[in-house]
């Protein structure tokens, strides 16, 4: 049985809840998997710490919140401090190098420090594209969805006139970690 657990942590408005929903859309509708995204739902969507748990599995999912996280991406210190629990010992952890500084005990995690937010602004041209940048980064680091399906889905999903900038965001995400 394949079961993969992903958590995104950020501050409200950065777009990670969208990234979680996109991941589920692709896994279910294009790859015929079972998947669920459980977002925090609070006033924090307007600036406080937020997270979304995504579970992707070959089998129906019993419990919708992550219990043993394989991949954790976090773009701010405060959500990092709150949401770093329930990570597997060998989890892949990607943090924003400008915004997350104190990692604490990193156990056997594979930790990557990358300027996600800054590269999104500079490389993709708009911070709202953090969602797609994070999605692409996840695809590259985990292979939990296929690259081709991701591109096809984003082309279809992107609002009119934004396909190009979303493709650029995918490129930024794919190149953040060499």
């Amino acid at each position, binding site marked *: 049985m394949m079961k993969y657990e992903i958590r995104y942590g950020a501050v409200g408005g950065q777009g990670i809840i969208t990234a*979680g929903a996109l991941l*589920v859309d692709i896994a*279910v509708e294009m790859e015929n998997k079972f998947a669920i995204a459980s977002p925090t*739902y609070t006033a924090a969507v307007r600036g406080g710490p937020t997270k979304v748990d995504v579970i992707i599995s070959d089998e129906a999912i019993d419990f919708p919140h992550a219990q043993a996280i394989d991949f954790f991406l976090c773009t701010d210190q405060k959500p990092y401090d709150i949401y770093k629990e329930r990570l597997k010992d060998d989890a892949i952890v990607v943090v924003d190098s400008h915004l997350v500084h104190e990692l604490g005990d990193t156990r056997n995690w594979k930790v990557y420090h990358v300027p996600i937010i800054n590269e999104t602004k500079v490389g993709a041209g708009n911070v709202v594209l953090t969602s797609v940048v994070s999605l692409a980064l996840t695809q590259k680091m985990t292979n939990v969805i296929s690259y081709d399906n991701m591109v096809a889905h984003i082309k279809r999903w992107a609002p009119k006139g934004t396909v190009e900038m979303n493709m650029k965001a995918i490129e930024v995400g794919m190149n953040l970690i060499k």
Partner: protein
Amino acid sequence: MSQRKVLQGNIIIAKAALAAGCDFFAGYPITPSSEIAQYMSKEMPKMERAFIQMEDEIASLGACIGASLAGKKALTATSGPGFSLMQEHLGMAVMAEVPLVIVNVMRGGPSTGMPTKPSQADMMQARWGTHGDHPIIAVYPAFSDEIFSETVRAFNLSEKYWNPVIILLDEVLAKAHMDVEIPDPGSYEVYWEKTHEISDLNIYDRNIGENPPRIDFFHSYPIHIDSLEHDAHGWPSFDAKTVDKMQRLRMEKIYYNLDDIIKYKEYFLDDAEVLVFSFGISARAALAAVKMAREQGIKAGLFQALTVWPFPRAALQERFKKTKKVLTVELNMGQMKYEIERIAPPDVKKQTLLRANGLPFSPGEVLETIKEFVK
């Protein structure tokens, strides 16, 4: 072909309601149920079905009662504070025997409480929120496919038994995006009670245990609908014999039909040493916990109530003949545990896992409690 797609729990409810023939929605949006009203406001006008945003929840249920009496399948959606406001009209719907469906996406209470946090603390309100002895049906889906099927079933039950039906849902699932199998139309029952040509004005006249007929309110004799206790004509009556009959007619249309109304799921119970009783999001944690317990050689099973009211008493009592330990898991300070205490024989050991701080139980927490309990 049915299709698996990704939908939010609230949207699954809205889609299922439309599939069940819901053609009237009146509501006042409230977190965490708002997407239901939002979706209906967009979709219903396209289908030439009525959507009204009301001034509050009292008016919302009032409008639903009126629409239902005019032959519509009516729905409203709310959360704890709005559900509290609806209790008076809920009683009116029970008394006048008006079919309608109320969704309560529960949030932390009391009062405005924690609008964005899950809770299972309206269990007893769903049963006894309105005053007086009254029958009620409440269903509580936990998995995405159940959210669809139980919503359709809620409409069918309300239509069949001329009674309000409450759908309880967890905030966690209302907001989650998840895979769901939307069945093909025609693959599930949609119950339409035919309106009856009435030959006289005895609209409430029937035998104990029988369903009332659906009345063609506007196209037949002028009939009287009253929230006061009434006789077979619908006219106020406090005659002891009449009142006794009417009370029994209302209660027993439900209690004579428990086999049709009560639904539950049983997992790993045949040889279970401990039965976990749960519902909604807590049942999902419990199912994961029971599976982990089995891997560790602990004989645990899950009884997941889909119909929470009327309480699935007979099915549980059957299990208690063999299983002598019951663990109730619910996100409140202890509500349904009292139902278990009422029905479980004295030789059944009872344990609970309760919490009301806005955090759902994890499978690990349920597993630890099971392990302690079987020691």
